[in-house]
Structure formats: C-alpha cells, structure tokens
C-alpha cells in the first residue's frame, strides 16, 4: 500500500517534470531559433565592439534573442500572441506610431542651417532617392509584388523609422526583415559608401573646396519647418505623419520658446521610443517568420538600394557641377550624404574628404544633403504609400 502510494507520488512528480520540460526552450528549440540567436549575438557584438549604430543594434540584437526563445504556444508571452506584453508594445510598430514619434525627436535635434544657407543641397537629397526606386524596379523583376517591392525599396532611403512605417503599411509580413536590413546597412554606411564614392569621383573632384556656409538668421530657421511642411505635405499628403512630426519637432527646437518640449522630444521621448522600436522589431524576427528565401532577397536588394542611392547622389553632384560657376562648385564627396542615415553618411563624406586634403572639412556641407535626405525619403515614402497603399 505504502509502496503503491509512493510509486504514484513519484510518477506524478515525473509527469509534472516531463510536462514542465515540454514548456522549456530546450524542448521547443529548432535550428532556426539557434541561428537567429547567433545573428542577435552578432548584432550585439558589432554594436559594442565596432560601435556601429549601437543605439539601434543593441536593442535590435537583444530583441532578436528575446524573440527567438523557443516558446510553447498559448502562454500569451510571444510577440505575435494577442494581449501579451510584447504584443502590446509591438502595436506601436504595427500601427505605425513609433516612427512618427522618432521623427519628432529627429526634428527636434536637427539643425537645418547648412541646408538653409545653401538650399541647392536639397537637390542632392532628392537625387539620392533614386536608390529607393532602383531597388523597387529590381524587386519587381525578382517577383515581389508592387507593395512588397515598395516596402523593400524604401531601405534605400537609409531611414529606419521610414522603412518600418512604410513596411507596416505595405508589407507587414516582411517588416522584420526590412527593418533589420535597413538598420544593418545604416550601421554599415562607413563600409559601403566610401568605395562607391571613390569609384565615381576623380582625385581633382575630391579636392574641391566649398564656400563656408553663411550665418542663418533665427527667422529663417523658424520659417523653414513651417514653409517646408506646408510645401511638402500639400504635395504628398500621405507623408503627413512623418513630415508633420519632423517639421513640428524642428519648430519646437527653433522657436526658442518651447525649450522644454524640444528637450523632451530629442531626449527622453526619442530614447524611450528607440528602445521600444528596436526591441520589438528585433523580437518580430522569429525564426519561422524570418528565415525565408524572401529575407535573403530583401538583404540583397537592401545592399543594391544603398549602392544605387550613394552612386546617384555622387553622380548628381557631378552633373550639377556642370552648371555651377568655378568657386560655387560642390564637392561630389558629399553626394553620398543624400541618403538620410543622419549623421553617419555626412561623417563618411568628411572622413573621405580628409583623406585627400587634411584641411578640407566637408562635415557641415554634407549635413545639408543629409537632412534633405530625411525630407526626401519621407516624401518618397508618402508617394509609395499613396500609389500602393
């Protein structure tokens, strides 16, 4: 009797332990999960060791690990399980309200002076958007649907929030791969862009010195976000969430009377949203959703779009120089900054410029096309949304 009772007792414990084992990650792990966890670790390594976009790659990398912990379905903890904590946080990505909030912060921390003092640099920001539509055409040729191609093409805008915003609207299934691809290539801007810049410029062109930008008055700085918003939003109303927040953030900064709001927008607010967007985008890359042939295609197209965007920016400056007088010419090394990876691509312009002339600092000049690229990519996203949404 006692033996039988103890046998039942131990078999019950065994059953419970066995049941518990079924809930653990070890029982549910697949090769895909392990592969994704390794990718997450690589992201964290790159962010910490190389300091490439650490503010984004650390949350995304850790998010990839969190999202790929093998789960027993039905526990309401996974990011795709309705009502779970991660799912609630993920709504900011799905519904597209994180990216505009990030744009608010970007607006509040961006100084458009370089652009206002030399407005022709705006055109470089427009030219670099060729990357988006080049990648769009290639994606169509590879068999992606127009909506998917549009979402993939926006990687060429080199703007993570815009890529997330647009892909959440046009191709939610591909959003994880697109976001990771966009941020990866943004982190790799110092590696991808210099060879392209050297390829399309001559030694003489790299030595071009540009006029120092003039001082910009406060009135001009205040007018820029208002006029800029009205003009761009009237032309592309579908870009309203991004353009509105970008210029609103900038008005908070430049008005001079909303210092607290501007500091919150460019400080705690953007930090909080960056943490949430990075983590949840990382989490969304669950192995079964992410490890597909399409994801590889997206990464290849992302690289192509960055190449086209950089080349288009540089070549456009060379073309533009044909119409400019001597002394007013633009150094084509700032053409790459038309992609809106702020401020990394402007830094790349400066560093490559210094390689050829140690006294030729291009940073401030490159900031013009760089912030123009932010406006350009938001406008391009609005157009794609209008045509394909």
């Amino acid at each position, binding site marked *: 009797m006692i033996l039988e009772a103890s046998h039942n007792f131990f078999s019950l414990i065994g059953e419970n332990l066995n049941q518990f084992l079924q809930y653990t990650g070890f029982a549910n792990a697949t090769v895909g999960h392990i592969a994704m966890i390794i990718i997450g670790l690589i992201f964290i390594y790159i962010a910490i060791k190389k300091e490439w976009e650490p503010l984004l790659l650390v949350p995304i990398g850790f998010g990839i690990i969190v999202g790929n912990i093998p789960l027993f379905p039905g526990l309401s903890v996974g990011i795709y399980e309705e009502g779970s904590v991660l799912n609630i946080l993920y709504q900011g990505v799905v519904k597209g309200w994180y990216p505009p909030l990030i744009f608010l912060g970007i607006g509040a921390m961006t100084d458009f002076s370089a652009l206002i003092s030399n407005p022709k640099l705006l*055109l470089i920001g427009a030219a670099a958007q060729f990357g988006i539509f080049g990648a769009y055409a290639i994606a169509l040729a590879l068999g992606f*649907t127009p909506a998917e191609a549009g979402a993939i093409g926006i990687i060429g805008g080199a703007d993570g929030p815009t890529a997330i915003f647009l892909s959440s609207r046009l191709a939610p299934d591909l959003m994880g791969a697109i976001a990771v691809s966009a941020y990866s290539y943004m982190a790799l801007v110092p590696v991808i862009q210099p060879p392209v810049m050297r390829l399309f410029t001559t030694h003489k062109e790299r030595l071009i010195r540009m006029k120092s930008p003039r001082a910009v*008055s406060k009135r001009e700085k205040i007018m820029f976000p208002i006029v800029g918003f009205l003009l*761009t939003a009237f*032309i592309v109303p579908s870009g309203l969430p991004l353009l509105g927040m970008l210029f609103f953030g900038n008005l908070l900064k430049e008005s001079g009377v909303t210092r607290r709001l501007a500091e919150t927008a460019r400080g705690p607010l953007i930090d909080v949203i960056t943490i949430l967007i990075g983590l949840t985008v990382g989490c969304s890359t669950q192995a079964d959703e992410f490890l597909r042939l399409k994801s590889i295609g997206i990464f290849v197209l992302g690289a192509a779009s960055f190449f086209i965007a950089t080349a288009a920016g540089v070549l456009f400056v060379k073309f533009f120089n044909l119409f400019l007088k001597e002394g007013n010419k633009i150094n084509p090394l700032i053409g790459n900054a038309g992609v809106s990876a702020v401020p990394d691509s402007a830094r790349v312009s400066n560093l490559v410029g210094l390689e050829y002339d140690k006294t030729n600092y291009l940073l401030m000049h490159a900031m013009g096309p760089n912030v123009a690229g932010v406006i350009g990519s938001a406008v391009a996203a609005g*157009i794609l949304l209008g045509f394909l949404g």
Partner: protein
Amino acid sequence: MKNHIRTLLLFGALTLSYTMSGQNMAAIRINEVQSVNTDGYIDDYGCRNGWIELFNTSYGTVDIGGCYLTDDPNDLTKYMIPKGDALTKIPPRQHVLFYADNLPDRGTFHISFDIPNAKQVIFVSNNGRTIIDEVTLPEGGIPANKSYGRVVDGEGSSEPTHFLQRSIRVAQKERAAGEDHGWAILDKVTPSTNNLTLDGDSKSTTMGKTDPYGVIMAIVAMSVVFVALILLYVVFKKIGNRAVIKSHLKEAASKGDVASVASVKGKESTSAEVFAAIAMAFHLYKEDNEIHDFENTILTIHKESKSYSPWSSKIYTLRETPQVRRNK
C-alpha cells in the same frame, strides 16, 4: 490690441468646436430606402418591413443617438433615435439600418412610422431643427421589393431626382459623364452593405499590371520628390537672398555707412576706390616681393595652411548653434 486678439482666438475656438461637432453629424447620409418589402430582408423579429439605411461617409465614428428620422417635413422630430445605445455609433464608412415598421417598442432600430406611401425621408440633427440629409422618393413610390439608393455609397447630391426612375447602369453612365444624379432604383437590394461593389484589384495589383517594370513609378515618384524639394529650394533661395541683403543693410546702417547701405540696396555699384585698392594689392603682391606678407594686420591672399578648423572643433556641436559671449 491684446483684447482684440483674445476675442478673435475665443471666437475662432468657438467656431472650430461648433464646426467640428457639425462635421460629425454632417457626415451621415441617407443611403438606401426600401418602402415595400414582401420577400426580402428579415428583421431581428423575423418580420419583413420597409427600411431606411444611413451611411457614415467620414473616416471617424459618428454617434447618431439623439438625432431624428421623419417622413414629414412639418414634423422633424417624429422619431428620435435613442441616446446611450452603443449600436448608434456608426463606425467609419459603415452602414446602419432602421426598420420602418411603426413599432418603436421593439428597440432602437425600429422607428415610429412606416413608409409604403412616404413622399420623402429626412434625417435631422440632434437639435431637432437642422436637416442633415433628405431624399424625395420617386413619384408613384418605389416598386415593391426594389430599393431606391445612391449609386455610390454616400456620394451624389440629395436633390430630388424622383422623376429619374432609371436603372443603376444608366445612373453609372451619367455619373461617368460627370452628371450628378446620385440616386437610382438599384439593381440589387443591398441592406447594410455597399450599393456599389468595388472591383477586387487593390492599388498595388493595378500598379503591377500597368507598370510591371517600375519605370513609370520611378519617373513619377522621382519627379514628385524633385518638385517638392525644388520648391523648397526656390522658396529658401529667395528668403536667403532677402536675409543676406537685410543683414548687410543692418550692418552698414549700424556703422553709419550711407554708401554701403546704398550699395547693398543695389542702387550704387561698388565704388571705383575699392577696385583701385584691390588692384593695388594684387600689384604689390605680384611685383614687389609679396610685400603684404611682411606687414601685420593686412589682408593677404596667401593660403593659410593650418590643421585646425572650426568645422572640426569639438566645442561646436552639430545640433546646437554656438552661443557667442560678449564681454560688456
């Protein structure tokens, strides 16, 4: 002056709030009406009655609780839609159906009159006076088991078009020709659903068919991007030019230099003395052993080779305008 501004602001806020509440209600349209129903839609009591369909044309939810439905222009408050019913909140671009069975005791959506002989149907705002939408029904009535509705949900004028008892195909042709005949005897009776069934192709699919290589998209989109940024360029070029002229004028005026002010305004070109001085400087530089470079505080055309530049200075950040301190 301040009081005027405050009054204007208050007036503006009041107007805005009035317009906003008005806009919500104004978005409701009578969309489809069936007077005689003997073999069609069955209500929640298992009965067949005439019905009135309303449509929310806006992209926000509109609560029609407290509004009125009537078939009598002399009695605009004939049936008040009960307040506080969650079902009277019509979601964006959605329909709601009222059964014209003269049995209001059966619930919110059963109104206090029937409409087999009605001449018109009117939807009235919650103030009981403002007519939001009305439709005059066809002379002789709507044929039994047919409905009279808008060709496209929520679109077209509400002008009486009862004399045009035409089919929906005719109405669609008229609409395509730019004529505004919003109402017709519909081919299909469609309670609580769209009168016009949209074709299945999304924008993306249509774009894929019309532009399989993405060339048209690239040309159109890049043109739009360039137009937007060229406009910005043009505007800020103008603003910049004005700002430069203004700052020069200010500078010159502060120095009391009348000649410079006139020069900046473009009324007088640079004086001959200035050109002479520049020519002399070049001459001295080229012919007289670069004499200027041995003089202190003289402007030189020699290239200054120094590794330091304000652009590389860490004290100037990209995000903040450097603050200039002036010692008093």
